[in-house]
């Protein structure tokens, strides 16, 4: 395989993973925040600031979505720590496991 092919292959893998995590997680986070506003009740604080109180069901759904995002961040940390110790994270199985490089 020549260098150009290798680069394109590497780049498309990075692009795919980047889209899934780099665009996907902010998107899920945004959906969570959006869900919180559905059917929420606005009220005014003593100083006049308008705040909104989300519904319970919204909070549950948003909580699950935010947990997914936090999972993604934890996965990122595991990747960094694993590579620092000369290990890699394998995505062959679910959940991903730490393996020797």
């Amino acid at each position, binding site marked *: 395989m020549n260098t150009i092919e290798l680069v394109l292959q590497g780049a498309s893998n990075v692009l795919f993973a*980047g889209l899934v995590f780099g665009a996907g997680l902010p998107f899920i986070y945004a959906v969570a*925040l959006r869900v919180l506003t559905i059917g929420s009740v606005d009220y005014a604080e003593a100083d006049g600031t308008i705040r909104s109180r989300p519904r319970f069901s919204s909070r549950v759904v948003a909580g699950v979505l935010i947990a997914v995002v936090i999972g993604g961040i934890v996965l990122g940390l595991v990747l960094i720590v694993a590579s620092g110790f000369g290990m890699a994270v394998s995505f062959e199985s679910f959940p991903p496991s730490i393996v020797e490089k």
Partner: protein
Amino acid sequence: MDAATLTLVLVIVTALAFDFTNGFHDTANAMAASISTGALKPKVAVGLSAILNLVGAFLSVEVALTVTNAVINLQTKDGAPDPALIADGGQAVLIIILAGLVGGILWNLFTWLLGLPSSSSHALLGGLTGAGAAGLGWSGVKWNGDGTKLDGVVGKILLPSLISPVIAMLVAFTGCWLVHKVTNSVMHRLEERYFRYGQVGSASLVSVAHGTNDAQKTMGVMTLALIASGHWSSTTSVPTWVKVSAATAIALGTYLGGWRIIRTLGKGLVDITPRQGMSSDGSTAAVLLAASHLGFALSTTHVATGSVLGGGLGRGTPVRWSTAGRMVTAWATTFPIAALVGALMWWVADSVGGAAGALVVFIILVAVSWWIYRQSRVDHVGAHNVNETWEDAAEVTSSPAEHGVLDASEAPPSDDVEPAEPTETKTH
């Protein structure tokens, strides 16, 4: 102190100096967006980034001893210096490393003076390539891989640097577009705050990853110098003092903050909102981690810049293309110019000869660095004015569209912005 020891000491000091410039040159990659959107106050941002870089550096237990193998034939596969080169007590290898480091530092300082984010790893590898070519001849340079994996100047530097900003831009663009699609109808004050949290989270990941990757490179170079001069023999571990000093140097550099670069990346390219900032930082973190996981070498700087640009374009925010153009010029010239300086320094050291040659190169480094520092004080950029309005607003060429309206409603409340001190006018 004999001549060989003096050369070694100069190499170690220069390596730590490079690590320091690596820190402050790259603070912007992690923190520019958070600082410009007001998610973090400038001093808090650089402090957080410094601590996380320190943590990241200590997390790197693996030895990145083969760092020069990407571009020159100085070491064997296991990381030991080429036996033929250390017959003279390692002097030849030490001079190549020293000249390469000086090439990297000077280019880092020069681009910092211009406020341009350029890749520190390209500067280091460029300097080493130039010094290697000068010291070992053209055959000493590894131009391309053997076809089984990406390697050499073409496979590890040239092609990735063309592609990585595009990848980052696409990811940040997509993220930003999706985030706006979802939240456009509800713009609560509360949300802006939450987007800032998301931004700080991803910026923190970038800082840790930076500490792990980049401090490792300096540790590798220092250890290579120690092995070449016969002061260390293991190729599977790094002396503790090397680890501690390299981690400290990169953290101190980060804390100093490359304010000139932070300003360009945070304000000069695009003015972004917290939502765009979160998309940009999320993209930077994901692309960097994915690339390092997949063994695809790319530069943090190129990714961070591509992400900021993508975050801006995803919302149709006007981009200052002239700033973008200057950045691209800096990227394209980083490797070759650092290489030229590296080669020149090797030639100077070789002409003078021995430890005296190393000393002359070191004195050149100190003198030029001092000159650049003096120049930087003329139009000082620091935590106090990093977020001031970018002046050449007239340059903006793309359509402002509806963004002007959004800007007013999304601007961070004044209590989130550090009070601007009067601009310094006196000369130092």
